[in-house]
């Protein structure tokens, strides 16, 4: 059972027309039995690539161009790919990935996939034995109704259940090392907590060591003894988890931590009061028709059930809930992108459906989650930003140009971006463009649907700051929708917690978070891994 893994000076390069371009260099790591290592870094830092190099799963354009990987004095880099997969993949080193929704083969049952994964390393085992093994694995990952699960297909399971099956698949041949690449990022917070606990427990039971990759220091701190911090393809800091969280040596790590501490501290400037009702949502309900099947009753899915709330002028209200809770539907209804089945929405005391479309566009503007797909790739940034003004048809082209430049300044982007195309911009820059586009009509209300979920922490931090500044500068009303309580805490004065289309708790953010009343809010809060700033803190 004793082994050791050591990666020395690993170098990974991407092949392009000119030659090779290094994307990871000087990557070193040693892992002993039973240790739990976390690798943290933002997207593009090379944390996933270095592990894919270890498991020989690198995409075809990317190659290992230097260094060595030793497993028990055997250099894995000199091994044939075939031999590696036969001797190591799943047997000694297993890997689980970020996307549980797509990581299982959709056309085979759970039972069959588990059995096959067992058989690939144990040829000639009887069907009965392999089935027995599959069942015991499902039991080990704490799935209920095992007989039923064996016969089910992946699409019949939830995200959390699928991730459990994937863990079972990875562990069925009892590997020595489990590599988990952001295994909980795509999951709801309450499910994330369960999965992390499961991984911790299985590491003990199976006597495995763990390499856990994540962008989220909060998650990493729960599962690792040691941390490696990566940036731009290099390790910039490593050490014991406790030490790094308390006193990081590098500015970058400190920066990462500061973003989290700041969210933890909250935002005192929020609590000023003005009581002019701006939007009133009264008893709205919305049901969706599920796809029709011949000869069966039409099924309906109730997305929003009887929700009422009001938003005051200059207010910032957060709607928090897990996926499927109906929070996005509410946003769509207020935006006028969906119509409620019943109930009404008043803006400045007039019903929203009576307001003319152009007029409504000048009152309410949305910002969406994914900055990569919300900008038309065929238009210049300038055109994207000025489009709302062009549609309104009452501005000269000079006015439109001046306004667009003004907006670019407002979101802290240089003028030269006017002539760029979206694919030349980073995720954070794109989100700034979406904000500029939303603000050019000088709306009174911004509806932000998960505005930072697709972004790295440091970028998230900048965007939150920007939104906060804009709110003060333009005295704009904001409704923010998020699954992430810390984001909400930073940006919103009041909070609505929503579950299954109903509001389960509402009130001032500070009070709700400090003293939650409903059990659901408590559960949500306990699932968030918080990192508290140290007593003598680094901020200010």
């Amino acid at each position: 059972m004793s082994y050791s893994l050591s990666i020395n000076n690993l170098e990974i390069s991407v092949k392009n027309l000119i030659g090779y371009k290094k994307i990871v260099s000087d990557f070193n790591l040693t892992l002993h039995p039973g240790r739990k290592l976390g690798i943290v870094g933002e997207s593009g830092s090379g944390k996933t690539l270095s592990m894919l190099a270890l498991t020989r799963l690198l995409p075809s354009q990317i190659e290992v161009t230097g260094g060595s990987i030793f497993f028990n004095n055997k250099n894995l880099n000199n091994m044939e790919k075939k031999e590696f997969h036969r001797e190591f993949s799943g047997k000694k080193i297993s890997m689980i990935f970020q996307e549980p929704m797509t990581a299982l083969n959709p056309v085979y049952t759970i039972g069959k996939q588990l059995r096959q994964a067992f058989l690939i390393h144990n040829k000639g085992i009887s069907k009965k034995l392999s089935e027995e093994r599959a069942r015991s694995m499902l039991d080990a990952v704490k799935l209920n109704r095992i007989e039923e699960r064996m016969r089910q297909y992946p699409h019949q399971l939830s995200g959390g259940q699928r991730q459990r099956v994937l863990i079972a698949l990875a562990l069925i041949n009892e590997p020595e090392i489990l590599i988990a690449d952001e295994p909980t990022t795509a999951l709801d917070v309450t499910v994330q907590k369960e999965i992390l606990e499961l991984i911790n427990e299985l590491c003990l039971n199976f006597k495995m060591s763990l390499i856990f990759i994540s962008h989220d220091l909060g998650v990493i701190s729960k599962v690792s003894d040691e941390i490696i911090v990566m940036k731009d393809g290099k390790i910039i800091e490593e050490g014991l988890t406790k030490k790094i969280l308390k006193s990081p040596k590098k500015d970058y790590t400190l920066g990462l931590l500061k973003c989290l501490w700041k969210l933890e501290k909250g935002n005192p400037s929020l609590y000023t009061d003005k009581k002019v009702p701006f939007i009133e949502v009264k008893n709205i309900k919305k049901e969706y028709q599920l796809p029709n099947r011949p000869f069966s009753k039409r099924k309906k899915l109730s997305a929003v059930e009887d929700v009422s709330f009001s938003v005051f002028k200059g207010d910032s209200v957060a709607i928090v809930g897990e996926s499927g809770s109906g929070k996005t539907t509410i946003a769509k209804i207020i935006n006028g992108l969906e119509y409620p089945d019943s109930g009404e929405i008043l803006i400045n005391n007039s019903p929203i459906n009576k307001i003319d479309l152009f007029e409504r566009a000048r009152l309410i503007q949305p910002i969406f989650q994914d900055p990569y797909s919300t900008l038309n790739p065929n238009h210049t940034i300038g055109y994207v930003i000025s489009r709302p003004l062009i549609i309104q048809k009452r501005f000269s082209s000079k006015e439109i140009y001046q306004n667009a430049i003004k907006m670019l300044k407002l979101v802290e982007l240089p003028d030269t971006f006017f002539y760029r195309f979206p694919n030349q911009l980073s995720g954070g820059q794109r989100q700034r463009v979406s904000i500029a586009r939303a603000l050019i009509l000088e709306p009174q209300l911004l509806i932000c649907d998960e505005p930072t979920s697709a972004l790295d922490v440091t970028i998230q931090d900048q965007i939150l700051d920007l939104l906060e500044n804009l709110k003060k500068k333009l005295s704009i009303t904001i409704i923010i929708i998020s699954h992430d309580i810390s984001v909400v805490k930073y940006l919103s004065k009041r909070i609505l917690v929503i579950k299954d289309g109903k509001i389960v708790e509402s009130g001032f953010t500070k009070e709700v978070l400090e003293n939650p009343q409903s059990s659901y809010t408590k559960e949500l809060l306990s699932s968030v891994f918080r990192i508290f700033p140290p007593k003598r803190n680094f901020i200010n």
Partner: protein
Amino acid sequence: MLKFISGRFVVVIAVALTLSFITFFLLNVAIDPAQAVAGEEAEALEIEQVRQQYGFDRPILIRYFEWFKAVLTGDLGISYYWNKPVGSLLLERAPETITLALMSVLVTIFIAIPLGICAAINPNSVIDRMCLGVAVSFQAIPNFWLGLVMIIIFSVTFPIFPVSGDKTYFHFILPSIVLGASSVPPVMRLMRTGLLDVMEADYIRTARSNGFFGRKLILNHAMRNALLPVVSVLAVQLGHKFGGSVITESVFSINGLGRLALESILGADIPTVQILVFVFAFTFLILNLLADILNAYLDPRLR
């Protein structure tokens, strides 16, 4: 599953009914049925007599319902041109076309799928380029020309296969290859891109990390997913073969439905054309239904 099939079947029937009415309407508008029965050189009076006698002067809806009632009782009408019941004409000609269509689809499957897999396993390699080259040239060659060249090579220069006719299965080999060749390119390309797409999928990465590689990876994890789109296209191709084998049937003198359709249209034979259009359309719909059922069997998400 039963619900799924019966639901789809109702749709098939509805589409087929609509189609039969549209063809009935169009045919009766495009061609004067009385003229067609009386013959091209008939006098106006004669035509008028035929019109009265056959009841062509009544409204089109009534005639459609009468025709439809007769079809339901198994009476498909009498061909003006052949002077035979349309039903027996169909029975005579259908076996040839069915044999030809099925054999040509088998040819397609046996050429296109292995080539597609080869190309996908070695993307952008010499093998891949060659497969694509072969496919493109097959697609570019007109059917009748390929047929004639095959006859010259394999029946005249090297007399292995008979020149024409439809007496034995042996007679069908050359025409099946000719007819099947035209569907090789689309099916092969779909197999290739399908498999390439699947090989990029997350679940293939999972399988790799579990220790699958090489042939086992493709057979146990990739194949079934990659075949899904191919099945639908094969069904469409088979449908085309049933209705679209006119040229091949003519080149090889096979007395199938394709030639029957051609001759009936030239002879302005409304009852036969009407039934043939309906049969072709119905076969097409049924084949698509079968493809959907097969796909639902292969892909549990569709059930």
